[in-house]
């Protein structure tokens, strides 16, 4: 349904043009602004592409953790997510997952997968730093 080039494609070419044509012409004291704009465009492009799938996975894991049903109406996913994230945050702070090792593992795996998905959008280079499975 989207017109082409779509949002992500427009952002990609805008970023490329900025880097190839504008940045070399910017005075030294404005290059940092140019690089920040390029970064913002890259993040926005990845978010448009990946956000809703990633959010769906987070919601599904939280629904499973709290024994809730995933809403059939997509519009209800975001409010459910906000509610369950708040509940998870409160439970973690209260130490509700300290005792049961299996439950603790499940919660950790959820947090880990969520953080990885988010870093894949905001700074994928940071993913290369994290050794897979190193949780010590």
């Amino acid at each position, binding site marked *: 349904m989207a017109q082409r080039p779509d949002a992500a494609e427009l952002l990609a070419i805008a970023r490329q043009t900025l880097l190839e044509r504008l940045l070399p012409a910017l005075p030294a004291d404005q290059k940092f602004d140019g690089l920040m704009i390029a970064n913002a465009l890259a993040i926005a492009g990845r978010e448009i592409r990946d956000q809703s799938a990633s959010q769906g996975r987070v919601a599904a894991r939280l629904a499973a953790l709290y024994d809730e049903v995933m809403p059939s109406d997509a519009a209800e996913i975001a409010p459910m997510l*906000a509610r369950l994230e708040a509940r998870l945050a409160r439970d973690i702070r209260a130490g509700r997952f300290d005792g049961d090792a299996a439950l603790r593992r499940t919660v950790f795996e959820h*947090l880990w997968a969520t953080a990885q998905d988010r870093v894949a959008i905001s700074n994928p280079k940071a993913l290369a730093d994290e050794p897979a499975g190193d949780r010590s």
Partner: protein
Amino acid sequence: MDDVAGRARLAAWIAQAAGTTSVAIDRLERMSGGAVQENWALDLTLDGAPLALVLRTTAPGAVTESRTRADEWALLRAARSVGVSAPEPLWLCTDPAITGRAFLVMRRLAGIAAGHRLIRNPFIADDRTALVAELGRQLARIHRITPDSHAAAPLGFLGKASFEPASALVRSIRHYLDGRGDAHPALEWGLRWLDQRARPTAEPVLAHRDFRTGNYMVDETGLTGILDWEFAGWSDPHEDLGWFCAKCWRFGAAPEAGGMASRAAFYGGYEAESGRVVDPELVTYWEVMAHARWAAITLQQAERHLSGAQPSLELALTGRITDALELDILAMTGG
């Protein structure tokens, strides 16, 4: 401040503070730097002699954790009194009528501070092991200032020292999170870990609390000074050791002490000068704390942009650093 009338007011105030009639402002130019502090390069001719200075003031509505210019003035003087390499403060103005906000004028240091530039520059800091050992020694001198020491007498604004700085910081970050409308379960995971392992400190010391690559200046001769004293407070000495060695403050470089050299070099300098023994487990604890505290600050900085208080691309992008910090926290506290 940057207009003709502003410069005239500033020159007149400086003349009065310096006790002279002969002051000319040759240059007043905003320096590149953080989104919250404003540093202006100020070149004067005072009594016929050139002075290279920095005028330091705060962007409207600063991070509430940071100190006033008057406090920073006292901290710089106290640090220098125990032999720490820090900019020499010259004049303090608390009257908002001169530039609109309080400001501090200090001697300008030679060199560069910017983390990315420093780490990648092959000519500056060619002996990084020596530099990091020197930074360890400098930190040890800062930590010489304890609440009962003579040097601490003008530092009453720091309040009473807590013997439980770790618990206090966890509490303060949780309190901040509670004031927001959103939830951060990964950060809460880290805070729970920190809360469970918090130990009292045997000896609260003056901690710089932002002692890291990016906040010290280096030229071809080596370290020229330690900057950005606005977050200083009483804490466990390992808070500063942990902040300096934290992964989030290595600018992507491999060496674990500030992205510049080994922990052994850093701890070695610190231990030799302080007579203390560094507890590596405690450093690790405070590295986790560093990530949690910096994560909370990134949320706070993003909010400054989002609320409209200070629209800024830099602040906005800072808000997208939080995700990587949470991933780091999980990597350090999992299992």
